[in-house]
């Protein structure tokens, strides 16, 4: 795990940025031809592997996320505040009924602060789903997280360094 993280970090740092994406990133609309690289993410019960990624601004990444845990998980990319807002919303929904998700396996946009949208997807146990995303140029760090109540708090998040 530690070795593969290091290897991935190095390879990502060395990658050249072709960068066609708009700010805030876009996912399903981006054609495969523009994908710079594929990043494998494992979503376990209450952790992501790896826990840290280095991505260059403008890079277009295909995230291939596999849920190897026993529970449903989500994979949401956004800044820390937007993630927290999404988390609070999910907690409020979870208190009234279910876990705040309707179905799984699909791509959707998570509600962030001020109505902003974050690329996200929800995965059933055993499921693998892809998300194509272009790293924005105007931020230093982003967070990928599972905001199902209690999951982030248990450590299910990672950091994307965009500083270059």
């Amino acid at each position, binding site marked *: *795990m530690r070795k593969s993280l290091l290897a991935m970090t190095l390879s990502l740092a060395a990658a050249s940025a072709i960068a066609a994406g708009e700010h805030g990133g876009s996912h399903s609309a981006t054609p495969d031809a523009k994908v710079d690289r594929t990043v494998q993410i494992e979503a*376990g*019960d*209450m*952790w992501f592997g790896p*826990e*840290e990624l280095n991505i260059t601004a403008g890079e277009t990444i295909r995230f291939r996320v596999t849920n190897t*845990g*026993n*529970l449903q998980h989500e994979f949401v990319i956004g800044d820390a505040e937007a993630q927290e807002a999404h988390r609070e919303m999910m*907690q409020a929904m979870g*208190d009234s009924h279910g876990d705040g998700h309707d179905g799984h396996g699909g791509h959707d946009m998570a509600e962030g602060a001020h109505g902003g949208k974050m690329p996200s997807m929800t995965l059933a146990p055993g499921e693998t789903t892809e998300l194509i995303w272009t790293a924005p140029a105007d931020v230093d760090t982003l967070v990928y997280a599972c905001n199902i*109540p*209690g*999951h982030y*708090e*248990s*450590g299910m998040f990672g950091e994307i360094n965009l500083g270059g």
Partner: protein
Amino acid sequence: MARSSVITHPLSRRQLLKGGAALGIGSAAALGLRPAWANPWGQTNVYSKGVEEGPEVSLAIRRESILIDGKEARPFSINGTSPGPMIRLKEGQDAVLKVTNLLNEPTSIHWHGLILPPEMDGVPGVSFPGIAPGETFTYRFPVRQNGTYWYHSHSGLQEQLGHAGPLIIDAAEREPFRYDREHVLLLTDWTFEDPMSVFRNLKTAEGYYNFQERTIADFFADVREKGFAATAEMRGMWAKMRMSSRDIADVTGSTYTYLLNGHSPEENWTALFQAGERVRLRVINGSAMSYFDVRIPGLKMTVVAADGQPVQPVPVDEFRIGVAETYDVLVAPEDDTAYTIFAEAMDRSGYARATLAPREGMAAEIPERRKIADRGMEAMGAHGMEGMDHSGMGRSDMQGMDHSGMNGSDMQGLDHSSMQSMDHSDMSGSDMQGMDHSNMRGMSGEQNRMNANGMLAAGAAQPGSRYNQAGIGIDPDTRRVLVYRDLRAFTPWPDRREPQRELELHLTGNMERYMWSFDGKKFSEVTGPIHFEKDERLRLILVNDTMMEHPIHLHGMWMELENGQGELIPRKHTLNVKPGERVSALITADAEGSWAFHCHLLYHMDAGMFRVVKVS
């Protein structure tokens, strides 16, 4: 290699660096004779000083003079501290625990919550003869589980005087959460009185430690609020039960000093952290008699384990911990500031307190204590939604269901006419509208989920359970409080069989004479053990006919608490049963031998709320 085995959770490089830097700051000055594991920096892979690490541990039991809350006291000590040292084992080890009795009376140690051979369980008269003065007994057992547990004397009332300590087992595999630092928080209730005289006081005058009885002023306040007839009726009802509605706990802060890791609230034991870290708090209620409501104002706590077993994470603001239960919670203090760890006794007669802080010598505000609650309708089981559901649904919807949870039989000594009137007041128009209809649907759904033996399907909640309530004195609207209903396992436990039979036991008592029992019989009055057929799958139903909470503990086998979570019901070693409540648990009787089964309120156990379970 023992060192590297201590931490089993993965740390990122950055987290390791952060942790290392924190530890470099150095250890704290000694604050009297405290247990070594209560070091303010907590336990990490590089700071394990003073912990008794397995697999081989030697423990010496003494009675000695130690200051408690700054006053002269003579507690039981284990390796020189009281409470005792933290024992740290690893899943998969073969533990060898040598206990030497340096007292002038027999003693014992029970490893609470551990699955082990019956002769290693440490209950005198059930598992072994006990440890005589001057003798050493060697406990040997394979460690087949992990998590937060504790150990304590099972001899007489020794546990009341500090004969207890934390028992932590590190997991062989990755746990379903990650953290940077951990602290053990052991709650105990200390008395400077002789426990024998505490017991005598309870026998002679039940309300001895209860200075919160209702007064004539309360009476007139009630009359203003509820009217004269209702007030008089309530008073009459409690009088008939020979109880006060303010009997929340029978031993209270009037004799107890509530301790956290052996320290009084004034001593303010401090657990240190660095801002941004995720901290695991292993909370153990090692009290003789006291339930606590635990919160850390300003921090969300995420419950990740109950009774040592991982549960799907539940973010809460507060949780109630019954005697002998353990909860593991994660907190993530972002700010470089102090937080109060506040453990309020359930009867509000006092509290234990510590501080979570980035540096020593800090303190945060201590929250105001809540007012004592009255045991009202809820003690009768006719309480809130769930109680109403069942009575309201009546005969037609509940055909074939067991009504014993609602009929008169478990309301011994109650005047039925007053029950009638209570029901009516509870169910008048507006309340009916407030009823949760989804619950009703759930109930009729459960009718279809009867198993082949005509019993409720495995994992379904019994009618009469109140798993969605934390209990007396908790206002669920003030903050998010953990309830049993929240507890869900990650995966089903190995035995998925439906129960083959049901065993119903009533928790009974006579407050006036301070007699506590199962099915109306004290331990001294029963003729033989409760029999479990080897390898049978049974449902244990506990019906609380008393007006107090009872933490019921089964040795040797897990109890899978049927809190309505189906296949994902949690498993526990100690079940809190609220007044008037009916709870159930599935048990796989795979542990041949004789096991203790009892209320974990020390004086209740001593008074007779104890049985032996024989698996053969």
